[in-house]
């Protein structure tokens, strides 16, 4: 398990990176930064942890091209900025850092994507978490509804007890960006499983239909590709409460990717997979079978969809037989379907027929 670092440890870890650059220059060579290759070709299954992690392939970013040199300079500015925050006891969002970089002259970021990627690079190389760097994500966490109780320390430093069914409105409990023990404690629950849902429309449909109470589950709205804190709290609930997690998504290649990042770890964050991934999560639907079995309204796969599916066929996270079958079937059908296409059979079909049938296959209903 990745552990948290003290400010001193964080600073020392960052100085290793700076030292690599410095020493190369002293030797009369171009400065470099060494980091693992961050593509699907360099992730492998870690049997001990049950998730996918970066392999041994390293790439060296050296200052022989303008682009890489600028990256190194930016990394130095970020290191300096983080050190300043550690001293001052402040934190900033990634977006704030992006704007602060305006003052960095040659080292300023061209886009926020660049600054996000660089923060991840630093995490990977230093083995620190961005929480150690005092950097907060911009994306907000998920919404949650169900009979489960937790304790959150509010901004006045007081612990608040919140039941995610009785103490919240229809929009549910909002998961904060930091869900670590210093901020959130999981207290008790009276549910049988957790269901993660891709779209807000479907999340609200299940709430309106009272699905969480009828089937004794916690509902979690992923908001598309789930934020780190969403994946982290799923992982904590699954481990600490020993609850099964089922994932209910659209039936398209992008949803497959969302599932892989939940269950096996995302390629971009493979350095902290064991901290974010829930290996026991199960893909509930929409499957390629479902499109046929339920005769769902569908769309043709786009060129990009097809490319994505083909890329998934060679992605080690989808190497097992069931996934290969699903992906190939979707390619053959040439179709994809949304969660909400189930409404073809009425508003209650999803809660009265589809989900009960799918859950009973898993022994959860």
């Amino acid at each position, binding site marked *: 398990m990745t552990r948290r670092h003290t400010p001193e440890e964080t600073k020392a870890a960052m*100085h290793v990176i*700076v*030292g690599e*650059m*410095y020493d*190369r*220059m*002293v*030797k*009369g*060579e*171009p*400065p470099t930064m060494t980091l693992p290759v961050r593509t699907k070709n360099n992730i492998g299954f870690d049997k001990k942890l049950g998730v996918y992690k970066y392999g041994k392939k390293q790439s060296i970013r050296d*200052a*022989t*091209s*303008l682009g890489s*040199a*600028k990256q*190194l*300079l930016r990394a*130095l*500015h970020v*290191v*300096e900025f983080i*050190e300043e925050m550690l001293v001052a006891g402040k934190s900033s969002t990634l977006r704030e850092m992006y704007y602060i970089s305006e003052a960095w*002259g*040659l*080292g300023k970021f061209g886009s926020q994507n660049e600054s996000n990627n660089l923060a991840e690079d630093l995490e990977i190389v230093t083995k620190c978490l961005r929480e150690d760097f005092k950097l907060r994500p911009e994306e907000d966490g998920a919404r949650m509804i169900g009979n489960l109780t937790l304790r959150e320390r509010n901004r006045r430093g007081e612990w608040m007890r919140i039941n995610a069914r009785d103490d919240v409105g229809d929009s549910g409990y909002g998961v904060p960006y930091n869900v670590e023990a210093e901020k959130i404690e999981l207290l008790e629950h009276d549910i049988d499983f957790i269901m993660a849902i891709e779209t807000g429309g479907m999340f609200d449909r299940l709430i309106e239909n009272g699905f969480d109470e009828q089937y004794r589950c916690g509902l979690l709205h992923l908001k598309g590709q789930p934020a780190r804190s969403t994946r982290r709290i799923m992982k904590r609930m699954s481990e600490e409460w020993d609850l099964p997690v089922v994932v209910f998504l659209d039936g398209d290649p992008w949803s497959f990717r969302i599932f892989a990042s939940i269950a096996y770890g995302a390629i971009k964050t493979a350095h902290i997979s064991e901290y974010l991934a829930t290996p026991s999560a199960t893909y509930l639907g929409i499957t390629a079978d479902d499109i046929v079995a339920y005769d769902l309204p569908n769309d043709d796969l786009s060129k990009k969809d097809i490319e994505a599916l083909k890329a998934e066929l060679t992605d080690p996270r989808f190497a097992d037989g069931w996934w290969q079958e699903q992906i190939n079937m979707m390619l053959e059908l040439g179709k994809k379907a949304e969660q909400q296409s189930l409404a073809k059979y009425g508003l209650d079909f999803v809660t009265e027929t589809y989900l009960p049938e799918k859950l009973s296959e898993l022994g959860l209903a």
Partner: protein
Amino acid sequence: MTGIAEKLASNQKQVAISEFFEKNKHFLGFDSLARSLITAVKEAVDNALDACEEARILPTISVAIEKLDVKKDIVKLIVEDNGPGIPQKSIEKVFGQLLFGSRFHAIRQSRGQQGIGITGVVMYCQLTTGRTTHVRSKIAGEPTAAVVDIGLDTRKNKATKANQGREMWYNADGSSKEHGTEVTAQLKAKYQKGRQSVWQYLRMTSIVNPHAEITFTDPDGEVHHWPRVTERLPTKVEAIKPHPHGIELGQLQRMTSESTDSRLTVFLRMNFSGVSARASKELCVAADVDEKTKPKSMNADQIRALLEAFQGERLANGKPVKLLNPPTNCLSPIEELLIKKGLSKTIDSRFIATLTRAPEVTQGNPYQVEVGLIFGGNMPADKPVEILRFANRVPLMYQQGGCLLTKAIESVDWRQYGLDQPGAKGVPKGPAAILIHLASTNVQFTSEAKEALADNAEVIEEARKAMLEMGRGLRKHLEKKKKMAKTKEKFELINDILPAIAKKSADILGKPVPDLSGSITQIMSAVISETETVWNKETKQTDVAITLFNYTTRVRAYTILATWPEKSGATMINNDTGGRKEATGVWAWKLESLQPGEKTVISYSLGDLERGDWTETDIFFRGSQDVIGASKMDEKFLEEIRRLERVLTDDSSEDEDEDEFEPIESIGEPAVAPPNGQTTLFGGEA
């Protein structure tokens, strides 16, 4: 059999003028209110340019348009020139008589092949507004200008004149006008902006008439000015006789019937171009007509046979009769340098290539293709390139798609030259404008509208070849630009980014800033050249600076060569590095030892050039290690230049230049003695 054309023309004159206009307005250029205005400007400006050219005067033309009645679309047009002026008694003929002048009979390149002339404008004004056209004209030496109002009596189909008189003519600054003509007309028309506008017509006219100064005041009072960029008037063109390949039966019939020659051979020699004494006899043999035949007495069969002999369908001694090409001095191309100047004054850009092909002959008619390509600057990158079409220096503004010139552009796969062209079809896209000019004694149009050139495989191929050559130039330019951008990046890397990395990392670690020379050499590991060619406003010279950086660990030696416009009369000044002439237009400098980490600058200025004449200097090198930013010298290219020089100087000063032209083999690698104890790529251990 004779005079069909004349008969038709006289028949036509009997049709009421208004009817004639109504029926034919599409090909007279008056089919829409917007186009009517362009046509009126065009006729007046063409007249002014032709008159100035004839009188060898550098034209200064001003065009002004005012809106008189916006609701009824009535505008006032004033066109003034500094031409020779028109004698008082001729004004009526020039403005009131259809097809006045001799240019329809002569075979040479002329603007007047298009439109029916200024008379058409006078007619149009009379018919649409009921107003006469006011003409003021002054001849040099006469104290006053002639003035007259010209109209048309639509019932009698005759010109009318009123308010005839003489008056003083003053310029805006109060001085009296020396010579020129001014036309003031009122017509129903609409002023429009954009690709088909008076503005565009004048802009295009100014591009192909770089010797003209044109000022345009639009209806909003905005003044557009296109300056004169050369003092050189277009070459005076000679009229030529028809060539047998370009003649038609009717014309041949008329020529024989009007001939007073006593023998057919004499007739052939004297009335046609390209017919030698021998050919005249052979043509008679081929046509099976006695060479002593009086042309006037030839019968229809004989004339037909002669035409077949012209066309090579009838043989003499088993072969078609060999004819010489017609002379090409009847053509007046704009020429490469002037197209360049014309283009660069109207379009701001980074790259211009122009090309004038040698004259060619198709169906007995001499013609010549000229092209220009201008790239970069502020032109939009995602739109089709602007096509500027011209026939005999007259802009073609309508029917672009159906024109031979457009088809020639479309026949090129522009993708390989760096322009976007989806499916390698159609007009390419990119920040560029393509100019294409056809100069010919007989321009063939697709229709009477005279806006699109008719297909002709030979002309298309000629134009296509010109495009390909220009395209290669463009590709070279783009490749060079890419290379330069890369070099610039490297410089930014070592001059700005690397020192920043060094300082910041030292700051963070609390250590001294490291010395970077080693890292820099490793990063660059090359010899790099940077060339700047800039116009110096103060000195009116083109300043060139070639900088060489040796970012390798060894001493280097090179010969650096640069192109310069010697042939255009440029002079090389302030060339402190010396060097020597390598060939015409190529200068060479020997750099004996470039130390590692050292920078050397070769700088000089080019005099006797104008702004925009020379914007890019090509740099070559001789030496074994590549120089980024320069090309390896192609010795064949030099040899070719030298060969041409020898041909030119053969009879005059062969001995003088002897030591200037070392044999190429001996130049090769510069002989450099490496400094003691150092290894160089050229010498090994010294």
